[in-house]
């Protein structure tokens, strides 16, 4: 299978706002990966922007212990990094966790990936983590296994990881400089001692880098997560990105610090703020010249279940699972059919895109007039189409349309404007929140928009648009962008939206 043509076309086209990164269509992120990596990640929702519209993941909370402290984490409420700063509802023993995984996989056949992400550090709980992986690799060979770690004990565990065919590892690397690390990690537990400050951070950094190198040498895919902490490591992360790429990490996920005072973290209680949408995007763009950037991360809980951005955990509490009768070999057949259908859909989309690009290259690339980029928000339930009602959306995907094409920027969470029933009375304040969340966007695309939010959206400079229900996201965005161009709304009047090259 050859690499999609779009990449070649893009390299011939004159370079615009951004260089190598995630420009052009949203799945470019995948297209410039080597084939053997594409094969591994095409159905991994956390590693592939496109896959996350179709495939689901789950985490099992089997790993409560941690061997370091991070200033963005409060151990009383679990880890705010890999999980959202909520609590995991139930901690599981490995046998329970495996039962849960089989129940979810049989009920949600789109679930392709099982991760262990806490609520502590999975590799600080090697027995529980590896027992879970061992049982799953025997009982559910059609599920991909992955793990995330702070990296401290990673070098000691690489052999064991390779044994269970765990080919995706995420390391959270927030710095490569111990002076920066001392502001993020108050202590680590190392060789039977608690080591504080710079000395502890230096050991952690050394172990992370060593672990990264060992994983790459074993052919295990590594994604690096970094938490962007304004004033602490924001200037430093571009260097981190360069270094981890040079060592062979294939994807970098820069996430915003979450630090509400009520989470009780050091950062939350001492007033350390998280980055704004613009600051996050600027850093991601700055890093993207050197590295594949992940922009669709939802910073999910350590017990999340479902498509990214949704959590169906409540359907799979232990008491409900006990009542389910799961025949996994049968379920596996059904799952294979569902996966084949999704793959077919993805493949036909890819071919359609190739055909389009070939057409463009035959006709020659028309010198399009320089038009300014526009941010658009999309309400979707998945499947890569516009299929969510404005009032029901708990998050919006943000895309940038420009003369270069469409690129995915990120997602923004909100409270659904109208949840229906008794929460509707709160609709007005929820709308205010959504208006704030959509700041900078000029269009919001959804399957339907009610009469009431229409006016406030328009006066906030955000055009509601329900005309493209059930259409593919990128196609609809291009159409709307073209309409704006024809209407003379895209004159390059403002440079403020232009991204750093």
């Amino acid at each position, binding site marked *: 299978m050859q690499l999609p043509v779009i990449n070649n076309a893009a390299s011939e086209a004159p370079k615009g706002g951004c260089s190598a990164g995630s420009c052009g269509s949203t799945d470019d992120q995948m297209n410039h990966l080597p084939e053997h990596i594409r094969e591994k990640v095409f159905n991994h929702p956390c590693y592939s922007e496109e896959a996350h519209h179709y495939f689901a993941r789950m985490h099992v909370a089997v790993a409560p212990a941690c061997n370091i402290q991070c200033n963005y984490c409060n*151990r009383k409420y679990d880890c705010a990094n890999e999980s959202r700063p909520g609590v995991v509802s139930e901690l599981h023993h490995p046998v329970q966790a495996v039962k849960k995984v089989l129940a979810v996989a049989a009920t949600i056949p789109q679930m392709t990936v099982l991760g262990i992400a806490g609520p502590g550090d999975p590799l600080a709980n090697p027995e529980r983590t590896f027992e879970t992986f061992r049982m799953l690799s025997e009982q559910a060979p059609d599920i991909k296994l992955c793990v995330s770690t702070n990296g401290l004990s990673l070098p000691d565990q690489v052999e064991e990881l390779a044994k269970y065919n765990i080919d995706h590892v995420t390391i959270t690397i927030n710095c490569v400089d111990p002076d920066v690390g001392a502001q993020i990690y108050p202590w680590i537990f190392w060789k039977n001692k608690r080591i504080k400050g710079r000395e502890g951070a230096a050991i952690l950094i050394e172990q992370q880098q060593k672990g990264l190198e060992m994983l790459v040498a074993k052919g295990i895919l590594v994604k690096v997560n970094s938490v962007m902490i304004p004033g602490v490591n924001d200037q430093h992360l571009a260097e981190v990105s360069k270094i981890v790429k040079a060592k062979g990490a294939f994807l970098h996920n820069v996430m915003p610090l979450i630090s509400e005072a009520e989470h009780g973290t050091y950062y939350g209680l001492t007033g350390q703020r998280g980055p704004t949408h613009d600051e996050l995007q600027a850093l991601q763009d700055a890093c993207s010249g050197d590295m594949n950037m992940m922009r669709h991360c939802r910073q999910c809980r350590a017990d999340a279940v479902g498509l990214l951005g949704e959590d169906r955990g409540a359907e799979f509490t232990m008491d409900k699972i006990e009542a389910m009768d799961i025949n996994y070999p049968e379920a596996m057949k059904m799952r294979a059919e569902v996966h084949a259908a999704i793959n077919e859909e993805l493949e036909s989309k890819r071919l359609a895109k190739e055909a389009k690009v070939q057409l463009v290259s035959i006709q020659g690339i028309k010198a399009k007039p320089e038009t300014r980029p526009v941010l658009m928000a999309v309400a979707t339930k998945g499947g890569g189409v516009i299929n969510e009602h404005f009032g029901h959306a708990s998050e919006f995907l943000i895309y940038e349309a420009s003369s270069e094409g469409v690129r995915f920027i990120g997602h923004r969470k909100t409270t659904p404007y109208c949840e229906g029933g008794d929460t509707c009375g709160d609709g007005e304040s929820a709308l205010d929140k959504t208006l704030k969340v959509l700041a900078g966007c000029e269009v919001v695309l959804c399957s339907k928009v009610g009469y009431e939010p229409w006016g406030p959206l328009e006066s906030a400079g955000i055009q509601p648009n329900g005309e493209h229900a059930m259409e593919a996201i990128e196609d609809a965005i291009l159409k709307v962008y073209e309409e704006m161009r024809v209407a003379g709304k895209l004159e390059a009047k403002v440079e403020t939206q232009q991204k750093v090259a």
Partner: protein
Amino acid sequence: MALEIIESCVNCWACEPLCPSKAIYEAKPHFLIDPNKCTECASDFEDPQCATICPIEGAILNDDGVPLNPPGSLTGIPIQQLAA
């Protein structure tokens, strides 16, 4: 001579595998230390291991009922913020 785990324990399991005397056990509502087995790691380690990895300030007390990790000692959160 024995340490004690009190109710602020969050049941994170970090201490349990480290105890050289196997004095720590899972219990409800939180982990406990068997005072007959606990040696405070005297002959095994420089520092008592449970209190060395415990992330929760105040959760482990010494013989005199004094926390081995007093408020602010692990997170660096100023005490007035902790009280708030």
